[in-house]
């Protein structure tokens, strides 16, 4: 069974890029969300094995979304997608329950390595 992934990012560009990284690497991208509100909803609906979460998004930030998702599903695995210079936000996200993080700009192999580790597949 391929692991099911939800991608959360407000940029279509980033979503496509992350989607391409997952596709063909044994993952199934089951959904996308463009903001924190959508993320919480889609997570509840899709129950993905893994969620990649952008931090700075409209309506609801990735940190708030993470906090809410974890509240409803403490075992949810959320990997934050952050940029350099966002260290304090990432730490906030970790406190909110994020399992790990990747730093943009990222390489496909870095992303896969982080998520496989976090899912205990390595």
């Amino acid at each position, binding site marked *: 069974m391929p692991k099911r992934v939800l991608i959360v990012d407000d940029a279509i560009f*980033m979503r496509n890029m992350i989607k391409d990284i997952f*596709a063909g690497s044994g993952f199934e991208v089951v959904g996308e969300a463009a903001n924190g509100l959508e993320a919480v909803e889609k997570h509840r609906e899709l129950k993905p094995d893994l969620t990649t979460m952008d931090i700075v998004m409209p309506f609801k930030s990735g940190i708030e979304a993470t906090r809410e998702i974890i509240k409803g599903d*403490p075992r949810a695995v959320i990997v934050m997608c952050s*940029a350099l210079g966002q*260290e304090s936000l990432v730490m906030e996200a970790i406190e909110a329950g994020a*399992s790990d993080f990747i730093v943009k*700009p990222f390489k496909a192999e870095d992303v896969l390595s982080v998520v496989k580790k976090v899912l205990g597949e*390595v």
Partner: protein
Amino acid sequence: MDLSRYLSLFVGEAAEHVAGLSHGLVALEQSVSTGSDAGPVIDGIFRHVHSVKGMSASMQLDGIATLAHRAEDLVDLYRRHLARAEPAAVDALLATCDALQEMIAAAALGQKPAPDPALLDRLGALTRQALDGRAAQAEPAPGPARAPVPPPAPPLAPVLPAEPEPALKPGPRRLEVEVEVAAACPVPAVRAFLVVKKLAAFGSLVGSTPTVEELKAGRLPGKKLTVVLESADPLDRIERALSQISDLGAVVIRAQDGQVSTPARAPAAPAQPAAAESSRTVRVRTEVLDGFVDTVGELLIATARIREVGRALPPGLRPLLDEGVDRLHAIVKELHGQLMGVRMTPLAVVTERLPRIARDVARKLGRQVEVEVQGAEIELDRAILEELSDPLLHLLRNAVDHGIEPPHLRLLAGKPATGRITISARRDRDRVVLEVADDGKGMSAGRLREAAVRRGALDAEQAAALTEREALALATLPGVSTAEEVTDVSGRGVGLDAVRKTLETVGGTLELESTRGLGTRITLRLPLTVAVQPVLLVRVGEEVLGLPIAKVHGAVQVLYGALDRSRGAPVLPYDGELVPVHDLAALLGFDSAGRDERAVVVADGADGRIGLVVDGLLGQHEAVLKPLGPPLQAVSGLSAVTVLGTGRPVFILDVTRLLAA
């Protein structure tokens, strides 16, 4: 990863973010001046600049990322309430928008643009200044020395859910975990923080070196972390949890009971090649759409041609063919409609930048202006939008330059110091009505009359005879302007006249209303699409011509010889006014059929309604308009050509320029 296939998506989306950024900055300045809550605006600004940074870094466009990063640092200060957005900073950030826009355009051409070092310095200096200003303010007064407080164990909530408890659980013992963060990790302190958090879930944290506070401040000397915790969990479980964290080098776990564990770190898994892109949208070059429109236009014409040929068939066969042709016609119309739908573009594309431009112009002139755009979501054909861009810009500059008074004069007049310009759009059946209204000083009909006389457009008597509304319309004539001095803001003499002409090329009209002291409103009426227009076909002698229905008010049958000629040229009483009548055949140099019983089509001319005498009315026709190529495009009075089902080409008249021909 091959990044080139993301380029067009990147360019489009990054440009949207830069536009949003520019928009937000103007709104920020407005909210600072009005004292309203700038929080949401700043959040938006931060998001845009941050997105540009992230996207460009992912595209390995480091120059763009660097500039965006520098801007983000500055905006972040506002977001965290550490500084206020001063006008100089907003200027610098707007200059950054412009630079980003250019850099993104360069990236679209496959270049890797470098940022302007002067701009980077400017942003850096502003950030430092903002921080210094704050540091100077926040310097605490020296207080009594505080007794050293032992570092408290940070209150940490367990992050990971506790696993089901084993039946027989040994008591907790003290563990010391040593972790080295990999040299390649870009943010080692965050990595270490994650380790502390994960370990905290296995028991209670006794302490760590560096402390959590130090990690939060980004400090991790030697990239080494030591965590001490009390935990009853078996080492392998803790090990497993740590093995799920990326970017860790050596890990050593020492238990109080002498157990030591040094799990080997597995190397990162090799990457799989990325699969084919699977996106649900495609971006199409606009030229491709233009080509489609042409092709579908040809289809419409070909369909009409088949129908025409069918008329020659024996009556028994015609119903079958007609049924087929009707069906074909319906499908082609549907296709055309869908295609026009695809070409529809929201007005926002051209209005987006207007508040920013108004702000720049106002700053230069010492005015205060607020621009509000309503109905920016309304969609128009791309071709019309392109034509609309410059006229709108011109109207806006006019409003700031000639409409809005300097703040002290506004206050004297009992108005708020900040002038208001509203650009609003709405649908009105098959047209879009666009209004540019300001609350400035209004236009003076008297001064327009004087100017028209001075420039020789009218004599004093004619000028005096004009109604208020007609006098205001003088502003749209070439060379009539009431601006006292020529400024580089609203152009030199090419004013409303040029705006009106541009609008007319796409079938639009311009109306002007103004009240002295209260403001001016300019109303533009535009068709939604240009490519297919209903035209009225008329016969002049042997020729068939088309008049755009949008310009036509009506038609009446007349006896040409019986028209009222008491003022010299013939006039026709129509709708309560006397409309001057012109013989179309004479205007175009055609031979008229010469019968006395003829028709007059009343249409919008350049200076009001005119009547055009024709030999006959042939009915309405959905014309696929084709632009005229050289040399015909030089003929004044003709705007386009269409082809009838019979294959006969028909010229479409440009009514407003007919009389000038």
